[in-house]
């Protein structure tokens, strides 16, 4: 859940209250879209979830789409923050990738509404949202760029990270579409295979997959 600071502890003044309400609206957007889908979500739904007035909503956002974009940005920062936080830079690349993927899977399994908003509904919210989604995926794939160390001199395609990320997000998308975010941890070995195979090939990726399934 995105933390909403208790307004009594904030350093004070109407600006702090305004920021709290903005956060509440963004959180509300994530919750409602994650439950009903972007198409079926209305501003009325969001303000009810966030417990703010319509006036307050329109003070912060021009419309549903603008609010969604801001909420999505917040989701991306939150997920990336957790992933980066979970990875020990001292560990080998394979271990860092495994830890990062496990973090994403756990976040999504524990918060299916977050997962649906981040992976499925973002595709529904217009061209700007889709571009941000691909930007976010690109940032994640940069995180994978170190995998090229393992290439040992062979030349990998420039957008190999995008292939790997596309493979992983496709599997997660399918699982979420059938409404089974809670089962994502079971999919972790397959996700790991999908992510690693373009870098290390099916033999080694199968080995990592088995270790993940056993561990």
């Amino acid at each position, binding site marked *: 859940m995105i933390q909403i600071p208790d307004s009594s502890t904030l350093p004070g003044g109407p600006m702090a209250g305004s920021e709290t309400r903005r956060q509440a609206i963004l959180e509300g957007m994530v919750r409602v879209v994650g439950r009903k*889908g*972007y*198409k*079926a979500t209305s501003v009325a739904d969001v303000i009810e979830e966030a417990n703010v007035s319509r006036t307050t909503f329109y003070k912060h956002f021009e419309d549903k789409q603008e609010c969604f974009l801001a909420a999505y940005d917040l989701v991306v920062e939150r997920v990336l923050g957790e992933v980066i936080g979970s990875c020990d830079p001292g560990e080998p690349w394979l271990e860092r990738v495994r830890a990062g993927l496990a973090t994403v899977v756990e976040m999504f399994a524990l918060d299916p509404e977050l997962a649906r908003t981040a992976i*499925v509904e*973002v*595709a*529904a*919210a*217009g*061209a700007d949202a*889709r*571009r941000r989604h*691909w930007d976010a*995926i690109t940032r994640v794939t940069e995180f994978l760029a170190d995998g090229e160390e393992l*290439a040992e001199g*062979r*030349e*990998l*395609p420039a*957008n*190999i990270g*995008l*292939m*790997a*990320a*596309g*493979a*992983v*997000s*496709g*599997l997660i*998308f*399918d699982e979420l*579409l059938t409404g089974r975010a809670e089962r994502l941890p079971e999919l972790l*070995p*397959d996700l790991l*295979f*999908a992510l690693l*195979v*373009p*870098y*290390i*090939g*099916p*033999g080694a*990726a*199968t080995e990592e*997959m088995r270790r993940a399934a056993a561990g």
Partner: protein
Amino acid sequence: MERSREGGRWRPPRGRHRLPPEVVARSQRERLLDAAVRVVAEKGYGAMTIGDLTREAGVSRTTFYELFEDREQCFLSAYDNAVEALVRRVTAAYEAAGEWPERAAAGLATLLEALAEEPDLARLSLVDIGAAGPAAQRRYRAAVQRLTPLFEEGRDYAVGGRALPANTSRMAIGGVTGLISDELVAGRAERLPDLLSDVFFATLVPYIGPDAAAREVERLTR
């Protein structure tokens, strides 16, 4: 469908004529489906109205409701048509081409070409579909799965292919659609055919690994 509004699609003469009603209805239906593709490409699914469709297609609102329940149904029908045509064309190229992996390369080349020829349809099939709600999202997934045979043969081709994860073909498809969507979202549909080496690599790599995949790409797409 790069037709001008006047040219291209046949329409029956205005006013009284002796054409059977089902011929007229079919033409009107097709014009509405074409209109859906153009309007969604222009303003997105969310902003598309029935008024947009009837204006673009040159039919009355009454006629629209005779043919479709609502705009979602019209859009989904356009989507089904687009996918059917695409899958048929790709499958034909694939089946004509001998063995895997040549077959996969032929299918992929045709896929990229077909999408580049009709950028509005390409975006509809791969990108805009997400906006039309859960029913549409499930259709997208079903459409993607129809391409599975292109990839699944890799399991027989690869040494140890039988031991690969059950959803390996879904991984390959995800890699390919990821690359294609990237170009479409950036408005670069005309560059899709240039992706052939990369989508072919993405197809092969889960089955035969990066070294062998790079060799096959070199051999078949030079």
